[in-house]
């Protein structure tokens, strides 16, 4: 019997979450798991809150993860980590990109962006396994913010018992040759960074 992994990947439309969760799904299928995934987006525009559900197991029924049961929460932005944290199970693992993007209502002065203390205190209601990674900073350094999704995939790969060559092969199949190298570099950077983050 294979172990089950329920993951929630969240962030902002335009950050490449759907592609990342697609690749994660392909990786799991290639490694012999059953997999279902589904994304919730407002509309096709950029800028809205996005959540992708990925369920990996011997057999999967519902494509949606139930609240309080996600083994992993992978957040591309901090407010989104907080927003979707009720999906986490006790002692689940959180990987959060240290990025703050105020939504319009905050920029317009209608709402207040929660501070770090509020975000971390809330998540610690159920788990201390919180990995904060400098993903945006790292991939801006590489020269392309759009590779953030591969950086975050690299972080997840550290936790799943799937060979690295499967990940690389699935990324290779999904991305055009022109941007493949920088994306693989971002993936490896994420995989490396997560291994020395203190929680």
């Amino acid at each position, binding site marked *: 019997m294979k172990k089950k992994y329920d993951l929630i990947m969240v962030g902002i439309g335009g950050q490449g979450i759907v592609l990342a969760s697609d690749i994660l799904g392909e990786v799991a299928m290639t490694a012999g798991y059953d997999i279902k995934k*589904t994304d919730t987006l407002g509309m*096709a*525009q*950029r800028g809205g809150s996005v959540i992708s559900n990925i369920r990996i197991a011997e057999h999967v029924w519902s494509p949606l993860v139930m609240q309080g*049961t996600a083994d992993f929460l992978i957040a591309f932005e901090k407010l989104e980590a907080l927003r979707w944290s009720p999906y986490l199970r006790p002692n689940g693992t959180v990987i959060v990109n240290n990025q703050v993007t105020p*939504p319009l209502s905050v*920029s317009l002065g209608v709402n207040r962006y*929660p501070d770090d203390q509020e975000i971390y205190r809330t998540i610690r209601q159920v788990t201390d396994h919180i990995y904060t990674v400098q993903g945006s900073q790292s991939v801006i350094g590489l020269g392309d913010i759009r590779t953030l999704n591969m950086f975050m995939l690299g972080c997840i790969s550290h936790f799943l018992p799937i060979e690295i060559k499967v990940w690389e092969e699935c990324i290779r199949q999904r991305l055009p040759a022109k941007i493949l190298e920088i994306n693989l570099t971002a993936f490896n950077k994420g995989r490396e960074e997560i291994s020395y983050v203190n929680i």
Partner: protein
Amino acid sequence: MNRLLSGNEALALGAYHAGVKVAAAYPGTPSTEILETLASFKDIHAEWSTNEKVALEVALGASYTGVRAIASMKQVGLNVASDPFMAAATTGIVGGLLIVSADDPGIHSSQNEQDNRHYARMAKVPMLEPCDSQEAYDFVALAFDLSEEFDTPVLVRTTTRISHSKSVVHISRTRVEPKPASFTHNTAKFVMLPVNARSRRPLIEERLVRLKAYTETFPYNMVSWGSNRLGIISSGVAYQYAREVFPDASFLKLGMTYPLPEKLIRQFASKVEKLIVIEELDPFLQENIAALGIRVQGKEFVPRFGELNPDLVKKAAYQAGWLEPTAAESKKIELPPELPPRPPVLCPGCPHTGIFFVLNTIGQRSKLLNDQGKSGKEGNLIITGDIGCYTLATYPPLQAMDTTACMGAGIGQALGMEKAGVNANMVAVIGDSTFIHSGITGLVNAVYNQSKGTIIILDNGTTAMTGHQDHPGTGISAQGERTKAVDLEHLAHGIGVEDVAVVNAFDVRALRDAVRKAISSPVLSVIIVRGACSVQLRTRSGQRAIDMEKCDKCGVCLKLGCPAIQKLDENLYIDFTLCAGNACTLCEQLCPKKAIAPIAP
């Protein structure tokens, strides 16, 4: 071979393998990817039609020549196509004809929620509902056979969670070559004069009787036995949620949901102590089962609207006593109150931002609407709109949309308000793709009935909201071929509009001048606001930054609602990873202190 496919991709591949020859659609979430996938096969004809009605008529014509055809649309698209849908149910078909309706429970991306299973009943045509991508792939082949065997169009109904979820599909077939097209003259079947329609009417009832016998043997109406204390009838994605929530129950999963297998349902019901239905939206299965005289529960506890999920099914199960709560419900995080929402917004560099900023300021909208969005006084500019990215201009800070009903509605609504005698200038806004879908007839009507209003066509050269599909205005076909482009200026002139202006979407002054001129003009005016969708920009350059030595924080730039211009704890800045730069420059044009300029190299 196994592949990870969305329901839409699986439907399309299933149709291709089943020998489909003609596919037609208008983009609409969550149905769009069906035609997009079919368009990648070059040995069939796959087209974006001007709207869903035309799409279904194209598919119906193809079917009359004996080839297999498919028309796919979102739930409200079937409203537009309901005329040919009912006609097709009456004439019947020759080559297999499938209509895919992708419903949107929870209104992720629609103007209303509706349960299109009722359409199957109204038209008396068979309906199949896949519960995952594998069934989506398998059902299409069955549906084509069913269509041809019973001389009927078949409704394949999905929902967002079927169309857009990906799951593993075992690909078991290869393409069946289509039959050559040929048309046999048969006026009694194809010409629905009243006399012919009347003679076809009893055939529909006879067909339904035969379909009722067929559905008893439909291989995907499946029973799986668990405990006999609880029996659950379900279909579609609701079945998956129910399996998750009720691990011990017995299940009758229906793949064909119209007409229903009465005998199978009676048998199943007789073997369980309690019978319930888990279904999304209306009590369609439940009411039809109750009508058989079978005691059944469901919608007394399961929500009647919105999208279902396993959490909601579980909650209903506890409330109804169908399930005993387990002692060890795991602890869940409680969120702090009032988290800032993050709804979708117009993108940085959006060609709609400038014109709506102008409509906002000319219409003095910030004075009209207080913080609660309530109107303080009657407006001097009423802006009627419809469906597209631009509907998002309703939100602050742009607040420049007064109505949105359905595709193309704004033009007719503007004329209605004008003729009612409202004391304000009327402006109707409509996207280029939407205008071609259902704005042209409205414009003809406005000319004919002597409107004095202003119609603004927002021409971003694509169908942006559904993911950038081509349309007749772009001159590129769904399969990537260069074709004839509809020229919007010529079209407006040809209809009889005398005042037609074309304005650059990123020139604030020109936009302001054009709107002022049009609303003060005593004749019908059309303004075409032209600018490319920023998501389609290949390269970006000249990202802007704010020089804080010059900036006095007046906040005018924030009034654009550009997501790249951000303010956090009194820090005002432009996120260069989001800014569209030289392609836009709206904020630079607005800044009274000239504090916004390209980032120094």
